[in-house]
């Protein structure tokens, strides 16, 4: 290995150096970045890491970045917070939230993967970058491309939430709406990447992009005081994040930065698009594709790229997967907001409600340290809550009117209690 990292086939093991390539040309299996951990073992210490600014770049040695790369955005290092009130509701005495709803700059964990992918896009000489996206990735690519002076081409299903479309256009990106679902958009992007010399972060730059997800896991471990949790519950769309958090824990363990622990990985999906959880529950190692029909559009991938590896991660770790209805998704969003003051998007609602199921079913023990991966912000999917809350008729700005208003509110509260 001439650099400390390079592309390696996940199945046949052949090395491909570093280039914008995602498929092994020998066996057509996916390529992944392999690191030579021995080259960093001596210098990459807890002290060294904690002396750096609180951003995802503090783990630079474990990311596939060009030598001397100077990042321009302080992404990552989002809060890891205990969630006792939510824990009480769900039946866990040791529940934590890793809150990427406030990731910088576009309020989802996709800021992590894009930060790493675009570093390589620059190196490979791409002037235009792009992605197929269910929304969050679109926002992240558009914003960070603007910051780096790259042209951005964003391919999205045409029925995406309005906020996610606006949050892409505002950065001056070219938006290409496709009359089809994400899987069709993704397939088109594979063909466009084949024809045009563009850097698609989740197509020809995918192996680099995917490594950015590891920072979610590095941060959990560091924020727990260099310890691994017992369980992680992760929403699954393409299935990459869950495998990369696992890889992150493994790398920290191999480097001696944390003690070994058998962390269980739990996957969360919406029932209306659940190819991975369906396979897990049936004991299959491969997915059957589905046609998505769920309000959790950021998870609406019926043919998940890393589905097979997500299933493997879940089974090997002793975890499990579950899925929840759209009503449970909305209930999860509300519960998290009401108990912990965190407004997450539909994917977070999926995670919260799946966690409830897993605790009820006994897959997760109440006393074990469990981290929920909250990966996106509720302000982007307000459509999901449309019509749920009544807004009272306005009252005149007079104290008497307010007292009357208050009386009605308290009266109805008393009524509810006495019912």
């Amino acid at each position, binding site marked *: 290995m001439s650099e400390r990292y390079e592309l390696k086939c996940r199945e046949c093991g052949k090395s491909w150096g570093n280039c914008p390539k995602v*498929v092994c040309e020998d066996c*057509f299996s996916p390529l992944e970045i392999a690191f030579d951990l021995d080259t960093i073992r001596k210098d990459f210490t807890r002290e060294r890491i904690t002396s750096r600014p609180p951003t995802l770049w503090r783990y630079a040695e474990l990311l596939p970045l060009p030598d001397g790369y100077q990042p321009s955005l302080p992404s990552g290092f989002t809060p890891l917070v205990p969630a006792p009130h939510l824990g009480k509701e769900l039946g866990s005495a040791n529940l934590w939230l890793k809150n990427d709803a406030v990731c910088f700059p576009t309020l989802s964990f996709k800021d992590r993967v894009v930060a790493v992918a675009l570093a390589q896009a620059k190196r490979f000489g791409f002037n235009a970058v792009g992605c197929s996206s269910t929304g969050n990735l679109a926002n992240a690519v558009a914003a960070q491309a603007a910051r780096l002076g790259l042209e951005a081409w964003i391919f999205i299903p045409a029925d995406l939430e309005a906020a996610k479309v606006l949050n892409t256009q505002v950065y001056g990106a070219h938006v290409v709406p496709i009359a089809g679902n994400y899987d069709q958009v993704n397939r088109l992007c594979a*063909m466009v990447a084949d024809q045009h010399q563009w850097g698609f972060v989740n*197509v020809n730059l995918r192996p680099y992009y995917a490594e950015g997800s590891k920072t979610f896991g590095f941060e959990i471990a560091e924020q727990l005081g260099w310890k691994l949790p017992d369980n992680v519950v992760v929403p699954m769309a393409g299935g990459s994040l869950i495998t990369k958090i696992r890889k992150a824990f493994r790398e920290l363990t191999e480097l001696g930065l944390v003690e070994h622990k058998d962390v269980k990985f739990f996957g969360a999906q919406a029932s209306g698009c659940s190819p991975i959880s369906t396979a897990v529950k049936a004991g299959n190692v491969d997915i059957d594709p589905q046609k998505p029909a769920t309000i959790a559009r950021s998870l609406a991938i019926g043919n998940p790229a890393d589905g097979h590896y997500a299933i493997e991660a879940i089974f090997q770790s002793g975890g499990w997967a579950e899925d929840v209805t759209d009503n449970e998704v909305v209930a999860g969003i509300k519960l998290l907001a009401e108990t912990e003051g965190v407004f997450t998007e539909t994917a977070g609602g999926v995670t919260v409600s799946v966690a409830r199921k897993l605790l009820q079913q006994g897959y997760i023990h109440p006393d074990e340290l469990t981290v929920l991966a909250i990966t996106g912000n509720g302000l982007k999917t307000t459509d999901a809550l449309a019509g749920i809350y009544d807004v009272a008729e306005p009252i005149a700005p007079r104290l008497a009117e307010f007292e009357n208003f208050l009386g009605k509110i308290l009266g109805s509260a008393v009524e509810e209690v006495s019912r």
Partner: protein
Amino acid sequence: MNVNILIPSVLRRHTGGQGHLTVTAANLPELVDRLGEAYPDLKHHLRDEAGQLRRFINFYVNDEDIRFLGNHSYTFQEGDEVLIVPSISGGTR
């Protein structure tokens, strides 16, 4: 049935640079066999050592994932357009 196949660039070094091929086949296993006969290099890229279609190659017929059409049991219609897309959009089998 005559089926038109679009070959992705990653596979074209095994088809002498051809991006479009037409083969006669009734179903997916037959199509893969015909391709393997015409381009022996391609054979072990499409099937593993056990003869199974490789997990990370997807087949689409007229823009639809063949798994939604019955997969191996789907009978090709005259003029069907078959798209081969490797790995980034998941596995087959």
